[in-house]
């Protein structure tokens, strides 16, 4: 049962990821990317990481994709404005990505043999994650708040029409 779920979700993730790259219209690309994120969130649930599944949907499928959609509509992009690449460059891209896949699969094979601990039910639950986040990772958490502030100021400054 869970094996089938894994296979179906993985199939959907790979298929929609391919469509993100291959489809011509940027709006369709964004919608396929949302589908990919939902499939990946499903894989998180299978791994018993419910908190990250919810955060993945809220942050990626919610906030980031709306930002993308907003920018695409703001810039009025569609199929006609899509720049074209030569066939040779597309062929080179596919070959390079395929070679990288071969290298990655070859080097990551046998990760199974590493010491796998007995499964604990509450590793990915919000209570356990919160304890780790606010005990061991408190400083990085606060630093990420500064990062957000810097990103916000940077985005506003870049968006201004005339910077005195």
């Amino acid at each position, binding site marked *: *049962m*869970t*094996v089938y779920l*894994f296979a179906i979700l*993985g199939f959907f993730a*790979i298929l929609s*990821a391919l469509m*993100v*790259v291959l489809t011509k219209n*940027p709006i369709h*690309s964004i919608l396929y*990317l949302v589908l990919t*994120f939902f499939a*990946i969130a499903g*894989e*998180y649930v299978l*791994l018993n*990481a419910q908190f*990250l599944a919810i955060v*993945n949907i809220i*942050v*990626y499928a919610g*906030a*980031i994709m709306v*930002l*993308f959609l907003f*920018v695409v509509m*703001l*810039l009025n*992009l569609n199929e006609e*404005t*899509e*720049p074209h690449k030569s066939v040779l460059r597309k062929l*080179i*891209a596919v070959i*390079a*990505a395929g070679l990288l896949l071969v290298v*990655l*699969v070859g080097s*990551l*094979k046998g*990760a*199974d043999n*590493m010491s796998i601990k*007995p499964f604990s*039910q509450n*590793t*990915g639950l919000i209570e356990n*994650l919160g304890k*780790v*986040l606010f005990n*061991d*990772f408190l400083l990085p958490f606060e630093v*990420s708040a500064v*990062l957000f502030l810097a*990103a916000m100021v*940077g*985005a506003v400054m*870049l*968006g201004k029409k005339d910077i005195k």
Partner: protein
Amino acid sequence: MMNQAIHTIPLDWYTLLSSILFCIGVMGVLFRRNAIIIFMSIELMLNAVNLLLVAFSAYHNDAAGQVFVFFTMAVAAAEIAVGLAILVVVYRNTKSTDIDVLNRLKG
């Protein structure tokens, strides 16, 4: 049921799935010229790495991996906000999102 899920699916399958997703992202960066699609491919690569981190975290029973994924998402959100702002400025100046237009820094 979840207890069985960890033990019926080998860890190699998760490494395979996230490798494939990562390579599709790399292909997208090389394949397309639209800067927005390239951004999306970068998001795809980040998600592939996140999936791998969560898988290893669950199999090794270590919550630090999942906290790291949380930070990755935070940094990705900040990166996208700034990146799209840069893209809007580029579009305002060149009237296109084609990355091949952006070769003025070439000597």
